[in-house]
C-alpha cells in the first residue's frame, strides 16, 4: 500500500468499441498519479465519457487493462470499485431527501446510525448546505443540486472521484464559482479526481494535468500552461485558446528553428515542433497576444498587414487583418496610452519572435 492520499489509475493499451466496427477509444495509455486532478478535455463524441465509464466499470474495455492502485480492475464490478461519481444531470434520487441521498452510500456500507449522521452533516457543511438536509432534490436550485451531487460522491471517502461534465447545466457565473469550490475540495481532501469537460477554460483553471482527446486518441497530456504555450499539434493549438494559422512549406531546419515559406512567398522563422524534414507542409500556429505592432525591429519575423476591422473591447482592441493572404489573422493590441493610432484600411508592420510561432502538422 502507498502512503499517499488518493488513488492511482493506469490505462494500459485500452481500446473500446461498441459495435465491433469502429473504435471509440484507440490505444489509450494514461497514468494518473495519486491525488492528481486530471481533466479529459475534448470535443463532443471524442470518447471522454466512454473512458470514464470504463474506469467506473459500467462499460467493459474491449482490449487492454485498467489498473486502480496497481490492481487490475477489469473484472471488478462497479459497486466493488469504491469510486465516487458525479453525473452530468446529478442523478440525485428524487424520492429521497438530501440527507437520505447522502446517507445512501453509508447505508450500503452498513455504517452505524450515529456515524452516518455525523458524516452526512460534515459533507453538507463542506458544500455549505447545512440546513438543506430535509429537502427533496427537486426543491433545490441547479447549483445546490450540483453541490449535493459532489457531496454524495465524496461522503464515503473514496480515493477516486469521477466527474462527467458536472457543471454543464449551470450558468456561467455559477459554473465559475463551482469550479473554484471543486478545486478547493480537491486540495483539502487530496482525492484523485478525473474530470471530464468540453470547456477549455474549465480544464485550464482547475487541472493539474489535461488530457486533450480527439477521435478516441489523447492528442496531448500536459499541464495547462504547457498546453497553451507549447501545443504539440495543430488540433491542440486550435482547440485551446485563440490561434492564428498560416500554411507553408519547410525550406530549412537549423536545430530548433526552421524556415518556412508561405504560399505568397513570405519567408518566416518558426519553432520546430511537429515537422520532420525540409519540404514538409506545415501549419504555423501563433497566439494573437504574442504579435506586436510596435518595436518589431528585434523580432525575427516582420510582415506587412492590412487592417480589415477593429473591435474595441475596453482593455484591448482586436484587430482583424489580412496577413500573407489570410484575412482572418487576429492581433490583440493592448489599450495603452501612447500606442499607435489604428484605422481600418491602414497597412501596418507587425512582428513576432520565432519561438512564439510553432511549426505544426499541416491542417486542411
Amino acid at each position, binding site marked *: 500500500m502507498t502512503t499517499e492520499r488518493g488513488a492511482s489509475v493506469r490505462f494500459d493499451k485500452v481500446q473500446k468499441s461498441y459495435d465491433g466496427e469502429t473504435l471509440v477509444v484507440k490505444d489509450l495509455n494514461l497514468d494518473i498519479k495519486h491525488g492528481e486532478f486530471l481533466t479529459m478535455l475534448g470535443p463532443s463524441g471524442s470518447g471522454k465519457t466512454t473512458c470514464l465509464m470504463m474506469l467506473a466499470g459500467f462499460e467493459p474495455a474491449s482490449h487492454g487493462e485498467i489498473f486502480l492502485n496497481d490492481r487490475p480492475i477489469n473484472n471488478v464490478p462497479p*459497486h466493488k470499485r*469504491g469510486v465516487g*461519481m458525479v*453525473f452530468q444531470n446529478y*442523478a440525485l434520487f428524487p424520492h429521497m431527501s438530501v440527507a437520505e441521498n447522502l446517507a*445512501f452510500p453509508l447505508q*450500503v*456500507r452498513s455504517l452505524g446510525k450515529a456515524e452516518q449522521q455525523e458524516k452526512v452533516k460534515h459533507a453538507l457543511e463542506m458544500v455549505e448546505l447545512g440546513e438543506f438536509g430535509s429537502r427533496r432534490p427537486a426543491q433545490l436550485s441547479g447549483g445546490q443540486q450540483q453541490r449535493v451531487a459532489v457531496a454524495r460522491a465524496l461522503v*464515503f471517502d473514496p480515493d477516486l472521484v*469521477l466527474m462527467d461534465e458536472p457543471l454543464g447545466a449551470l450558468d456561467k457565473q455559477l459554473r465559475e464559482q463551482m469550479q473554484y469550490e471543486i478545486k478547493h475540495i480537491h486540495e483539502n481532501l487530496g482525492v484523485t479526481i478525473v474530470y471530464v469537460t468540453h470547456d477549455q477554460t474549465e480544464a485550464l483553471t482547475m487541472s493539474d494535468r489535461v488530457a486533450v482527446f480527439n477521435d478516441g486518441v489523447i492528442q496531448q497530456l500536459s499541464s495547462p500552461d504547457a498546453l497553451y504555450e507549447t501545443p504539440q499539434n495543430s488540433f491542440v493549438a486550435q482547440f485551446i485558446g485563440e490561434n492564428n494559422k498560416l500554411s507553408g512549406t519547410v525550406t530549412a531546419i537549423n536545430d530548433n528553428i526552421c524556415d518556412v515559406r508561405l504560399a505568397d512567398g513570405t519567408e518566416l522563422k518558426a519553432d520546430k515542433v511537429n515537422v520532420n524534414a525540409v519540404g514538409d507542409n506545415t501549419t504555423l500556429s501563433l497566439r494573437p497576444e504574442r504579435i506586436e505592432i510596435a518595436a518589431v525591429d528585434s523580432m525575427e519575423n516582420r510582415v506587412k498587414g492590412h487592417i480589415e476591422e477593429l473591435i474595441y473591447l475596453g482593455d484591448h482592441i482586436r484587430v482583424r487583418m489580412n496577413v500573407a493572404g489570410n484575412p482572418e489573422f487576429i492581433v490583440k493590441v493592448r489599450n495603452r496610452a501612447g500606442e499607435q493610432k489604428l484605422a481600418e484600411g491602414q497597412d501596418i508592420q507587425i512582428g513576432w519572435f520565432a519561438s512564439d510561432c510553432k511549426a505544426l502538422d499541416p491542417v486542411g
Partner: protein
Amino acid sequence: MTDQTHAQTVLTTQDGVPLKVSISRALRRQKLRSVLLVAPLFLFILISFVLPIADMLFRSVENPLVPGTLPNTVVALQVWDENSGEMPPEEVFAALAADLKVAVAAKTHTRVGSRLNYENPGIASLFRKTGRRVKRFEEGDYTAQFLKADKKWGDVGVWQTIKQFSSPMTAGYFLAAADAQRTADGVQFKPEDERIYLFLFGRTLILSVTITITCILLGYPIAFLLSSLPLRSSNLLMILVLLPFWTSLLVRTSAWKVLLQQQGVINDTLVWLGIVGDDSRLALINNQTGTIIAMTHILLPFMILPLFSVMKTISPTYMRAAKSMGASDWYAFWRVYFPQTIPGIGAGSILVFILSIGYYITPELVGGTSGIFISNRIAYHISFSLNWGLAAALGVMLLVVVMVLYWLYDRIVGIDNVKLG
C-alpha cells in the same frame, strides 16, 4: 383636461368601441366555439350514460307500486301501529276493498302482489285469490269478508309488509342487497346460510385483489424489459402486449375454455407428460382458478402500459449512481429503482382493480358457480328475475365500494402519485 381623464378611465379601440367590450366579445366567440365543439359528446354522454345511470340509481329506492295501486289503504294504514301486534281496524279493510276493486279492473293487483312477494312469500297468491272474490264483496264488515276469502288476511305480518312498502321510497332493496331484512326487532342480517350478496361482494373483492397482484407480478418484469430495450425492439414487443386488444374479448375467453377444460390442451399436455394422472385431471375452469387465469390475461395490458410509461422516464443513471456508491444490483433496484416505479404500480393497480371488480363476461363464461362476481348476480336480476330495484341497489353498493376504496387509496398512496403516462 376632461378629455384626458376620460381617455384614462375608458380605453377604447381605434373604432371607438370600449376595449373591454371588444375583448369580451372576442372571448365570447372563443367560448362559444369550445362549447359547440364539446356539445355533441356532452349530449351523447348525458343521454346515453348519465341519465340511464341516474334512473337506475333512483330505481333502487323507488317504490311506486303500492302507494300507486292502493292509495286509500296506504292512507288508512297510517293510523295503525304495526308493532302493536293487533289487526288493522275495519276502515283499512274497507279501503283495501275499494282499492282492489279499482286495481282488479285495471289488472294491476297482481303486480303489487308479486312485488310484495319478494318480501313476504305467499302474498302474490293471496292477492290473486282475493282479486277474484273482491268484486262480489258487499257493503259492511269487510274484515270478515276478507278473512273468508283467505285466512291469511288475519296474519299481522302481511299487513306489516304492506305498510312497510306504502311509502313512495323504500330501503327494502338495499336491505336485501346487504342480506338484511326488517323484522319485528328492527333491521337484522339474514341467517348465515341465506347470505348471498355480502358473500359475493367479498369474493369479488378478494378475486379482484388476487388478479391485481398476479398482474403486478407478471407485468412488472415485462414492463421493465420493455423500458430497457432500444426503441425499435421495444416497439415490436409493445405491439405484442397490445395484441390482445385486437381480438374480441369473447374469442379470447372462449380460447381459455379450450385451453383450460378437463379434456383441454393444458390438461392433455400434462397427462401426456405424466405430470398428472389421467384420472386426476386439474379443474382449471368453471371455478375461481379459471376466473383468475382468464381475467389476469385480459387485464394484463392495463398493468403493463402505465408501468412502462413510468419506467421509461426513469433515467438509467440513477442505477449507475447507486452502483457507483457501492450498491449491489439488487440493493440498487430495491432502494432506487423500485420506489420510483410505485406511481406506475398504483396507476396499473387502480385500473386493473376497478375494471375487474365490475367484470361480467369472463367470470360468466369461465367462472362456473364458484368463480362468478357480484356483477353476474346484477345481470341475473336485470335479465331473468326482473327485480330491477334489487339490481339497482346492488349496483349502487358496488359503486359505493369502489368510491370508498378509491378514497382510501387516495388517503394512503395519494392520487397525485398515480401516473398514467
